[in-house]
C-alpha cells in the first residue's frame, strides 16, 4: 500500500501530542524556492491552533494595513506609454 511508505499509519498519528507539533511544522517549512507547484491542498500537520499562530511572524508581516491596493490608477502622463499614446493622437488628428 503506497500509504504505508510514508509511515503515517494510525499508530504514528495516534501520538498526537502538542510536543511534536513544532517539529512537524518545521518540517513543513521548506525553502520557498523548493515549493512544488502541486494543486493538491496538503493536510495540516495539526488539527487546531490558536488565532495568534495564524499571524505572520514579525519581520515578514509587511504591516497589517494596505495589504491590498484599491487605488491603483496611474496618473503619470510623462512616461513612455503615455507619450506614445499622445503622439498617436496628435498624428491622427494632424492627418485630418
Amino acid at each position, binding site marked *: *500500500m*503506497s*500509504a*504505508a511508505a510514508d509511515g503515517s*499509519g*494510525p*499508530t504514528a*498519528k*495516534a501520538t498526537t501530542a502538542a510536543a511534536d507539533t513544532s517539529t512537524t*511544522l*518545521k518540517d*513543513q*517549512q*521548506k525553502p*520557498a*524556492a523548493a*515549493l*512544488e*507547484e502541486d*494543486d*493538491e*491542498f*496538503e*493536510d*495540516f*500537520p*495539526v*488539527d*487546531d*491552533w490558536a*488565532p495568534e*499562530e*495564524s*499571524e*505572520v*511572524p514579525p519581520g*515578514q508581516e*509587511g*504591516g497589517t494595513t*494596505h*495589504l*491590498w*491596493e*484599491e*487605488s*491603483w*490608477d*496611474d*496618473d503619470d*502622463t510623462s512616461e513612455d*506609454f*503615455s507619450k*506614445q*499614446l*499622445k503622439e*498617436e*493622437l496628435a498624428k*491622427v488628428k494632424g492627418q485630418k
Partner: protein
Amino acid sequence: MSPPTLDQFLGEIAGIIKEKNGTQLQEYLIYEPPLPPLYNKIVSEIKQFYPTNSQKALENKCISFIPEYDEGDDGGSRTSFVMFMVKYFTFLRDVNVDNLIETHDLLKALLNQSILALSSSIGVIVLPTVVSLSHTLARLAIGLDKRPELIEHLIKRESVVENEATERVTLVESSANVIREAFKKCLSERSGPPSGVDSNGKPEGRRVGIYLMANLCLKLFFHCRKLRSAEQIFGNIYQQSPPLGLFPAAQRVTFLYYLGRYLFANNHFYRAQLALQTAYDQCHAQCISQRRLIFIYLTTSNIILGRFPSSRLLQRPEAAGLAEKFQPICAAIAKGDLASFRKYMDLDAQHAEWFLQKRILLQLSNRCEVLVWRSLARRTFTLSGSQGAVTSQGDVTRKAAPTLSLQDMLTLATLLEKRVLGFAEDTPKSNGLTNGHTGTQRTHTNAIFVFPKAQTPPPQEADAELPYSYVDPDLADVVDPEPPLLPNMEIIESIVASLIEQGLLHGFISHAQHRFAITGVKDARPVQVGFPRVWDVIKARANKEVPGWVKERKAPAFGPGMVVNLSGARPAGAAPG
C-alpha cells in the same frame, strides 16, 4: 483450542467499547503495514482458525466477545459493529499490498462496513476509525490515479459500463462516494439539541466529523474535477451543519479553501474572495504550502475585483515567485495597456502554462480585460478629454459636462490592438486553442462551431455520419460573422456602454457626437467621478452572503435532506465582460 492472541485482542476491544473510548479503538484497529508483531500473530491465527470459508465461525467468535450494549434511540444494533470486526479480520487475512487495486477495493469495503457501524448506538465510538480509514482510502485513491499503468484495465472496464448507459464513475470518485456516506451520517446526527451544539459549545455526537469527512470528499471531487458533486456537499452543509466557527482551525481553513475554489470556478469572485481571505487569515503562519495555494486564488479573485496585492504582501514567503506573474497584469490594467495585457495573457506567453495549470488563465484574461478597457477610457480622458466648463450668458449659466472623445479612444485602441497583431512586426502565429485562426487575435466565441465554407460538400455527397458536413437548412446561406481585426466605432461605443452598465464609468454616451459625458461632477474632480474605483463599485453591488458557509447558529428551518441549488445565485464580482 482457541486462538489465544485473537481472544485477548477481542477481549480488549470489548473493554474499549464498554469505556466508549473511540480514540483508543482507532489506535487498536491497525490495518496499515508494517503491522506490529502482535498483529502478525493475530493474522496467522486467523489464517489458521478462520480460513476463507469460515465467515460464520468468525462472526460467532466476535459475537461472543462484543458486549450487548444499550440500544440507542436510533435503533442501531451491535450486529453492524460485529460485522465490521469480522470485515476487519478478513481484511487483515486477505490483503495483499502488492496489488494496490485489490487493496483499494478491500479498504473501500472495510470503510463501508465501518460506516454502517457508525449508525449504531455506539456509532460515535467508531468515528475516529472511520476518519482514519477514509484518510487512507483517499490517499490510496489519489495515489492510484497518478499511476495510469495500474488502473488501465479499470478504465477499460468503465468504458464497458458506459456502454450499458450507466454513469461512468472513476476510481477516485467511487472512493469519494463511499466517504460521502460517512459525511451524511455525521451531518444527519439527531442527538442533542436541534442546533447540534452541546453544553460546552462543541458540535454534538457524530457532528464532530462533518468537516473532516466533507474536506476529504472535496479533496477527491476536486482531484477528479467533479465540481457538481462538490456543490452537493456545500448545499448539504449550508442546510444542516452547525456553524463552521465551532470546528478546529485546520478543518475551517481547508473547507474555506475548497469553498473559495468552487465559488471561483463558478465566477462568484466576490464570494470566493470572502471565503479565501478568511482561510488565509486563519491558516497557520508556518504552513507555507497551504498559504501559497490559498494566496494564489485569493490574489486572482482580488485582481479581478479591482484590488491588487501590495508589494509587501508579495514579499511574504508563501508569495515567492508570484510577483513576476501577477504584477505585469496589474501594471497593464492600471495603465490601460491593452497591448501588453493581451500579449501577457496569450497562450504562448511566458507564464501562460502556469496560469493554465492553476486554472486561472481564462478568468484573468476575460475578466481583467474589462478593467483594462476602463483604464484605457480613463487614460483617453486624462490625455485628451474636455474638462467641462461653466459659461454665463446674461442670466443663463450653462454647464458643459466633462467629456472624452470616443474617436480618440478608438485611435488609441487601434494603436494598441495593432501592436498585439504584430502589424509591421512579427507575423501572427497560430496556436491550439484558436482553432487555426491567427495567433493572439481573439476568435469568435463559437469558433469551434464556425466551419470554413469551402469544406461543406455539395448535398449529393453529404455524408450523414460526418458532423462537420452537416449544415442546418436554416443556416445554409448565413455568412459567418468574422470579428474585425481592429476595433471600430461600434465596438468602442458598445464597450463604453457596457462599462457604464457595470457602474465602472459614470455618465452617458452621446451617440451623435461620439462622446462619453461624465455626469454629477459638482465640485469633485471629473476623473474621480467619471471613473470610480473598481473595488468600491463591485463591493457596493456585491452580495455578502456566502452559500455553503454557516456563520451563525440557526434553527433548522427545513428538514434534513433539503438540497440547496447554488447555481441559481447571481454572480458577484465583475459583471460579464
